[in-house]
């Protein structure tokens, strides 16, 4: 069945709301407006305003209320419109949700799902284009997911809701219109990375909105006779070291592609782990393609220059094969 990433996510939400009366969705414009990215369109009519709950522009309070509702026996899905606005809720996510289980000696857990759009590429300039997945992936107590395919958009919400701890789901805004076949079964785990394309010459390790660009790079490399493997991290915390190291051991070269800024990036974490765990498997230094260290500019050519692009990935991969 052909479907879009947006429709797959909506189907996952609909299924969750229908399956469990404890589940409710809340956030800015999720109801009457239909969701700022139209993900929740139609759900208000189907499930009513108690379960598809519009909130005021109060990110800190409605994320905190989601935590409280989770502690109180519900299974809330809180939609923060974008990662940019999630900074207003960072206190509740980092100082409350992620800490409660450990700080209370294991007495409380926070079964909360927080969804947010992330990433650049639509000329919406510096304040609406952040990619801060690594900030959340830094925090013990959180699980961080980055569905990058239609089947992950469909299949990762249910296990996230079943998880007893807080889960943050990043949906790259550039992916919503992406269409693909939804294979059966579409149930997915929230533990493992996935090898999306088998290869042998270089491992291209990425996640989220950079996955389609990485596929494009792999195709370009193939034209030059370079057989690249593509690894989709899927789960950014905890990282699936085994899949990463197996790919590195097989290809002996790796490029990490990450839309975050290079300094302190998730790419840096992946590289450090490879150095720690698979250093002697490598035939070349590691390389990475990240965003340039500038606030995201508005003008199209400048934005494109700031972001990872297939040509940059190809160049980085070829640099390891000289």
């Amino acid at each position, binding site marked *: 069945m052909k479907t879009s990433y947006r429709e797959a996510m909506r189907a996952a939400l609909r299924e969750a709301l229908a399956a469990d009366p404890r589940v409710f969705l809340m956030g800015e414009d999720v109801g009457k407006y239909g969701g700022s990215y139209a993900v929740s369109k139609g759900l208000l009519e189907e499930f009513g305003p108690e379960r598809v709950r519009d909130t005021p522009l109060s990110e800190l309070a409605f994320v905190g*209320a989601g*935590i409280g*509702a989770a502690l109180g026996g519900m299974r809330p899905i809180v939609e923060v419109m974008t990662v940019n606005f999630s900074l207003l809720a960072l206190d509740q996510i980092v100082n409350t949700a992620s800490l409660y289980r450990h700080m209370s000696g294991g*007495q409380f857990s926070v079964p909360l799902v927080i969804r947010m759009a992330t990433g650049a590429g639509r000329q919406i300039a510096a304040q609406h284009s952040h990619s801060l997945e690594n900030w959340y992936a830094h925090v013990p107590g959180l699980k961080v997911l980055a569905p990058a395919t239609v089947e992950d958009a469909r299949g990762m919400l249910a296990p996230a809701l079943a998880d007893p701890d807080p889960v943050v789901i990043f949906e790259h805004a550039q992916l919503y219109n992406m269409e693909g076949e939804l294979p059966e079964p579409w149930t997915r785990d929230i533990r493992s990375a996935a090898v999306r394309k088998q290869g042998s010459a270089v491992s291209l390790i990425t996640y989220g909105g950079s996955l389609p660009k990485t596929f494009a790079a792999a195709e370009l490399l193939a034209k030059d006779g370079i057989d690249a493997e593509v690894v989709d991290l899927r789960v950014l915390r905890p990282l699936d070291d085994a899949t990463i190291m197996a790919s590195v051991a097989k290809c002996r070269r790796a490029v990490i592609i990450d839309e975050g800024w290079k300094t302190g990036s998730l790419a840096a974490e992946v590289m450090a782990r490879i150095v720690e765990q698979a250093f002697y498997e490598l035939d070349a230094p590691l390389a990475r393609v990240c965003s340039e260290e500038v606030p995201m500019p508005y003008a199209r050519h400048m934005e494109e220059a700031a972001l990872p692009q297939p040509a940059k990935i190809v160049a980085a991969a070829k640099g390891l094969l000289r």
Partner: protein
Amino acid sequence: MTLAPPPSGPVPWERDFALAMTRDMLRIRRLEERAAELYGERKIRGFLHLYIGEEAVAVGALHALAPEDNIVATYREHGHALVRGMPMRTIMAEMYGKREGCSRGRGGSMHLFDARLRLYGGNAIVGGGLPLAVGLALADKLQGLRRVTACFFGEGAMAEGVFHESMNLAALWQVPVLFCCENNLYAMGTALARSESQTDLCVKAAAYKVPTLKVDGQDVVAVHEAARKAQADVRAGGGPFFVEFQTYRYRAHSMFDPDLYRDKKEIEEWKTRGPLHTFTARLKAEGKLTEEQFLALDAEVAKEVEDAVAFAEACSWEPVEDLTKDVTAP
């Protein structure tokens, strides 16, 4: 600032209840006096925020609530945990950092949690508990439970944006939260008048169409009666309620605070309005309590405190191998 005269007048309670209230105030006072000593002996470390002077608020308010209600408290919460029913031994063990503490020694003084008592912390981010309380109350409302969520916070939290966001959400959604503002006049070292353009706190809550009460927090009778009224209103489905308890902490903000920002004279004046001695004086005047009975009660409480200390001393340390246990579910 001219202080109101000390709380006085008849105590409209049965003797047994009045003595139970006295006892709980005394338990908090003696527990914390001992904790301060133990801090000096380096048995208790980290931050230690004493509630001494404010006891009437926790005692009066929590005795107005039901066991099924939810409690959200701050880092100055020893009294709330104790009155809610946490054994003094468990509190002391937590302050020692021992495994038998309520939070296995991971939380310490500021993070007393008890799932059984529905005590959701022990939150040491100012204002951090407010949206949590709104969410707990929302969960109850969605599940058709007639619980009240009592959320304690200081007046300092009202300068945080999250206070305003939470008040708006609670009122907009008409969820059953009893907002209990413990106005002790100082946000750490910053006096209310130095930090707020509007020092009438009830006005702020009323701006969100939340009903309010302003109460003498040094008068346990007034506190209890106000809390009873407010919780009944909330429980009956009236939506959130805001009560300002006007109180004062006699000790410094924490054990690190040299207390240089207020007049010693001001502290002494507030001590004439002390919640314990003014209440016992009223009981004595009514013949409900004799000095001998008070001393006997005090001795009993002292015993409980020493028992808690001995317990905490004898408790064990969580093995280091358990360090990463309960970060997430196994």
